[in-house]
């Protein structure tokens, strides 16, 4: 077969076809749908491993989707198969497969349409693969919108719950704001660089004015702000936790939210670091740092186990974006990669805990879980250790890489990073102490049992990855960056700062929460805690200003236009006029034969006048 070079297209086609089959044909057969989706995830993972271990099939064909008379305006569909993309694919398909597997246990007994759920997962796999493998920005954008769409579907999976439906809408609409900027950025890129292909961009940034370049990069960055939930647009991610927990793990922790970082690094690689001007870098790094700090602060006073993890995701994404802004793309990708494993682990662990506690998400209603479900708690603790960067765990290495890069460029970001690390330690230990130690506080936690096989297996695999994925012997081959080289322990300021923040965090947590036994949060009750629980009033501000002010004002204007201009004058006015004319003319339609004859006669006269004399 000489079509073998087109084998990589299976990465996209397999999940897409499976999603279509699930959705259209298998509505009544959720088990079959689950099996198909699982097989497609396994198939893409196998294909990915085959390519990473040296399978060569040549360059896949590029298809022209929308031909244009101008060569540079042609929209191509092509695959970019460099190591960065393939290793990213490993993360996506690997975690995807585990999440599919976990879903089988987690969604057991759920009364909603599970075929729809698995179809959504498969669509997501297709969309994410499209972003990762896209050879040009247009195709990235297609995948970008598709992940937004699949995320919408999955957040709103339990759409009969109002909060889930609202969260889905919020995520989708918030993302649209970022996407608008992203689209502008893509068009600017097309105008400035003359191409949308990543392969053709290198070296073309040199002749462009820095100010214009800055605007372009910031516009592109807007897309990442939306998708990776950075500071002004971060509000959707905590709400997205309304979706099923495996979805949170796959989409809102490990892969999709990392797409923004991946896209920025991809641009950095293909445009060259010189395209990222000083100003643009400063803005990107600042946004990342602000997000990291704000999210970490807000996480301190959350009670919902998934929300704590969501804020920690925000905070870690802030780290990554900060690293991109510091032109440390490799460090960003390293952190993305380790974070994907341990955050997926944390979320899946949280999912297992939630299921075993009979769908209880409040940590203050748990407690004592370490005795009842030791394996799950152990895996969760591995993830926690990686997240709070205990030396030897994967998170330690990647966070160290970011801190080093920050210290080398802007020390202020280094100190921010260190501070956030202390906060991270604090809130994660708070979660662990409250939920796992001491006595059970509620009925659900008392009767918790160990999770089943389908949930335990992914946890174990991810726990192993959370521990070892940071070491050079694995990371050098798997970190999604072209030619990555990890370094081991190095004594220096970053190490000391990291250790210091770790110790501070642990001490604070133990001092405040003890070793279990507390029944309510000693920090709660004051105004700071209230502000933190209310997310620093950012959501409320958006509600007031954007929704209450702008949107309502615009809606009033539109309503005015609609009710007076369109309905009043255009619709009813025309209707009124028509009715009037109808009444005026209605005497003609009197129903009397004589009148009709007369009118016919008049018509005849008019006709003769018109035709014969051409009046």
């Amino acid at each position, binding site marked *: 077969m000489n079509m073998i070079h087109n084998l990589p297209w299976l990465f996209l086609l397999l999940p897409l076809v499976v999603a279509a089959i699930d959705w259209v044909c298998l509505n009544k057969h959720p088990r079959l749908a689950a099996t198909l989706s699982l097989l497609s995830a396994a198939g893409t993972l196998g294909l990915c491993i085959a390519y990473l271990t040296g399978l060569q099939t040549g360059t896949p064909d590029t298809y022209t989707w929308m031909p244009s008379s101008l060569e540079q305006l042609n929209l191509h569909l092509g695959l970019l198969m460099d190591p960065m993309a393939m290793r990213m694919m490993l993360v996506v398909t690997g975690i995807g497969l585990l999440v599919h597997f976990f879903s089988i246990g987690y969604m057991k007994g759920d009364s909603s349409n599970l075929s729809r759920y698995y179809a959504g997962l498969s669509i997501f796999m297709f969309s994410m693969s499209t972003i990762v493998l896209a050879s040009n920005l247009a195709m990235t954008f297609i995948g970008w919108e598709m992940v937004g769409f699949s995320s919408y579907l999955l957040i709103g999976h339990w759409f009969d719950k109002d909060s889930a439906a609202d969260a889905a809408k919020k995520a989708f609409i918030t993302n649209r704001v970022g996407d608008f900027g992203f689209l502008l950025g893509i068009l600017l890129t097309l105008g400035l660089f003359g191409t949308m292909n990543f392969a053709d961009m290198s070296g073309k940034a040199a002749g462009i004015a820095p100010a214009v370049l800055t605007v372009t990069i910031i516009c592109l960055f807007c897309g990442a702000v939306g998708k990776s939930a950075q500071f002004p647009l971060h509000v959707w991610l905590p709400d997205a936790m309304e979706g099923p927990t495996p979805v949170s793990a796959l989409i809102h922790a490990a892969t999709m939210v990392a797409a923004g970082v991946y896209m920025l690094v991809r641009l950095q690689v293909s445009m060259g670091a010189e395209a990222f001007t000083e100003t643009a870098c400063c803005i990107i790094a600042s946004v990342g740092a602000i997000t990291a700090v704000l999210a970490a602060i807000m996480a301190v006073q959350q009670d919902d186990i998934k929300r704590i993890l969501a804020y920690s995701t925000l905070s870690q994404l802030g780290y990554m974006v900060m690293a991109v802004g510091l032109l440390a793309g490799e460090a960003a990708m390293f952190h993305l990669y380790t974070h994907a494993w341990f955050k997926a682990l944390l979320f899946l662990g949280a999912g297992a805990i939630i299921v075993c506690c009979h769908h209880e998400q409040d940590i203050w209603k748990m407690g004592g879980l370490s005795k009842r479900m030791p394996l799950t708690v152990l895996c969760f603790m591995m993830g926690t250790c990686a997240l709070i960067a205990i030396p030897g765990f994967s998170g330690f290495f990647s966070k160290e890489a970011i801190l080093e890069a920050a210290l080398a460029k802007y020390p202020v970001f280094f100190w921010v990073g260190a501070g956030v690390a202390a906060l991270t330690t604090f809130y994660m230990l708070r979660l662990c102490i409250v939920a796992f130690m001491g006595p059970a506080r509620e009925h659900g936690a008392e009767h918790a049992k160990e999770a089943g096989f389908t949930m335990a297996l992914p946890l174990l695999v991810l726990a192993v990855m959370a521990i070892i994925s940071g070491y050079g012997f694995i990371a050098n081959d798997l970190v999604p960056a072209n030619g990555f080289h990890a370094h081991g322990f190095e004594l220096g300021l970053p190490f000391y700062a990291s250790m210091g923040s770790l110790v501070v965090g642990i001490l604070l947590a133990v001092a405040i929460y003890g070793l279990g036994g507390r029944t309510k949060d000693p920090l709660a009750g004051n105004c700071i805690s209230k502000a933190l629980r209310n997310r620093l009033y950012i959501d409320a501000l958006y509600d007031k200003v954007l929704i209450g002010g702008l949107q309502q004002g615009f809606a009033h204007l539109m309503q005015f236009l609609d009710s007076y201009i369109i309905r009043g004058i255009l619709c009813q006015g025309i209707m009124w006029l028509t009715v009037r004319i109808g009444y005026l003319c209605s005497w003609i*339609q*009197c*129903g*009397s*034969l*004589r009148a*009709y*004859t*007369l009118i016919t*006669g008049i018509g005849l006269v008019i006709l003769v006048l018109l035709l014969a004399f051409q009046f």
Partner: protein
Amino acid sequence: MIPLAHYLILSGILFSIGLAGVLIRKNIIVVFMCLEMMLTAANVALVAFSRAQGTAGVPVYDAQVLSLFITGIAAAEVAIGLALIVAMFRARRSVESTALNTLKD
């Protein structure tokens, strides 16, 4: 001799009177008579044309045949029309066209 124009004028006047009757009269039978008059007016014009178009003193008989056809059709029309009038009279007890005012209903 009488010019063609005078025959045409006669035809036109007869036709117009017939038209006026159709428009004015209420009695459907009279309306029907007026229709017949309009057809006859057409016959007059046709016969006049038949003479006028003739070559070397022989009329064009095509025109007269056409006129004959009109007469035949008129006869059939009268048969049907009068039957309709009878039917209408049965239904409405009247042959006035003012009785035919239910088209709007």
